[in-house]
């Protein structure tokens, strides 16, 4: 028989995400991991702008709603003066990979000892579904109405691959919050990321593929199917950089 999982103390307030959105699951997993690690009362969040902003209304913990894209820098400042506290950024793909690509990449480049969680739903959700740096080739959005033309807009950016290949980071992975199996795997990635920080190993990032039924124009179930068939073709799941000091 399935056992109800206890709601983490710091995430008890109701959220206002759309039906079928993956954000709620991602937040649940992060806060569960923090609680299981005994770090839920020793944590500060840098929260991005976009749908990730809604986390600010859910969490009962130290949190700063960062300017668009700047969580990588804000979390750097927090961690440098609070080395004994867990510092976590929670951002979307538009926030972390477009307007904040400089801050996100530079924090990884410096191997800042922070954990970065980027919810990738292949579009700007909060503003109504515009093309982002992770929009799939041919995907229709409100700013790519004929489908994304990669010849003039670039191809989907693969951040965990980029930092694990080019930089000396502690941990990088990509999970999905679609099925129980994938959710369980993603939770493991999240815990690995947080453990890396707790042990002072350096920068950790987990990208979390999430459904956006509202802007994709799909039902929640269609959205999950879309992730498994289309999105993962461009954003393969798995660990890209595993922790060395296990």
């Amino acid at each position, binding site marked *: 028989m399935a056992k109800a999982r206890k709601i983490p103390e*710091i995430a008890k*307030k109701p959220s206002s995400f759309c039906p079928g959105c993956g954000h709620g699951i991602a937040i649940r997993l992060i806060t569960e991991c923090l609680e299981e690690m005994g770090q839920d*009362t*020793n*944590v*500060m969040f*840098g929260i991005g702008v976009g749908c990730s*902003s809604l986390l*600010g*209304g859910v969490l*009962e*913990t*130290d*949190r*700063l*709603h*960062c*300017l668009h894209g*700047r969580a*990588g*820098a*804000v*979390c*750097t*400042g*927090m*961690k*440098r*003066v*609070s080395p004994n*506290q*867990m510092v976590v950024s929670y951002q979307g793909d538009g926030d972390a990979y477009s307007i904040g690509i*400089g*801050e996100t990449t*530079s924090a990884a*480049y*410096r191997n800042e000892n922070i954990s970065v969680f980027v919810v990738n739903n292949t579009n700007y959700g909060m503003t109504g579904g515009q093309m982002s740096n992770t929009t799939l080739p041919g995907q229709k959005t409100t700013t790519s109405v004929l489908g994304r033309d990669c010849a003039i807009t670039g191809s989907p950016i693969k951040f965990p691959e980029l930092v694990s290949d080019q930089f000396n980071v502690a941990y990088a992975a990509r999970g999905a919050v679609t099925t129980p199996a994938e959710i369980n795997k993603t939770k493991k990635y999240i815990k690995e990321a947080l453990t890396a920080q707790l042990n002072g190993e350096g920068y950790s990032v987990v990208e979390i593929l999430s459904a956006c039924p509202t802007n994709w124009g799909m039902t929640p179930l269609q959205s999950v199917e879309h992730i498994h068939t289309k999105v993962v073709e461009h954003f393969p799941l798995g660990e890209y950089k595993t922790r060395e000091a296990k």
Partner: protein
Amino acid sequence: MGEMIKGNHAIAEAAVRFGARLYAGYPITPSTEIMEYISWRMPEVGGAFVQAESEIAGINMVIGGAACGVRSFTASSGPGISLKQEGITQLYDEELAAVIINVVRYGNGIGTLYSAQCDYLRETRGGGNGDYRPIVLCPSSIQEAVDLLGVAFDLSEKYRTVAVLMTEGALGQMMEPCDLPEFIEPKRYPWGFDGKYSYKKVGIFERDSMKEAVAMNEKNAVIKENEQRWADVDVEDADYVFVSFGLPGRSTEGAVEELRKAGHKVGIIRPITAWPFPEKAFEKVNPNVKGFISVEANATGQMVEDVALTVKKKFSDNKPVYSLAYVYGIPEMEKIQKDYEKIAAGEIKEVF
């Protein structure tokens, strides 16, 4: 009397002694020496120094440090301060205390490396989006820069606001004797993050902008009432009163001394806070004063607007306000004296 020290180095050392423990910034002339000094000095005292990837990242790192209740600061110039504006308005909005040092350089766009006062309006009005007023302090000597840096940290924490030390390129680069402050113990303010959520926060969607606006205006009124700072000389019997801050203010003080020796009844108000503008300084001025003369190192005359507004508020007889805007650098004492004579002779017309 202290030892000769470069303005930027004195500011950096003083910040460490005042207990600042986070600096993040990006190199830009003429403020870079602050960062260079801090880069080795901050680790010596166990503080954090980050050479940020950009001006924007730098100010956002300061937000992170300030959010934790740690004395945090940054410095920049010209276009660098432009880039920081989103962070400055964010600091203000979050009621975080932080100090921004603007070593002002001349020009629009990329600008130049000349020393200037062209950022007066931007600093005093708050250069980012929204509706806010940082406290702006303007030193005219290295000693005053050091002393005002301490005031800036104290006021920013007292009022939970942003304080700007608006210095000038020349003041950063020059040397003169300066007494450095004693070390004070750094602290973490209880309103800062500790990881335990000790200081509760209103959820971002539960904020009441109307209530916040009322509270902000009340806070601004208190700051205006209590924190006006200035120096004045010979204003009680003056026919003309100069108003000038920073290094041009210092040169104007010299010009006033020379003009007095030559028998001219002139005085000077040297604002030390640019915001709040020292309106109270005008209450001491001779009621029969013939006019006010703003002396500034910018092209258009910026502070002259505050002078004119204050004169309108404090005097009923529409006194003329003149603008001597010397673009950049430090105006020579002799030049100020000659232009004063032109004003007195009616050759330079008032602007307000």
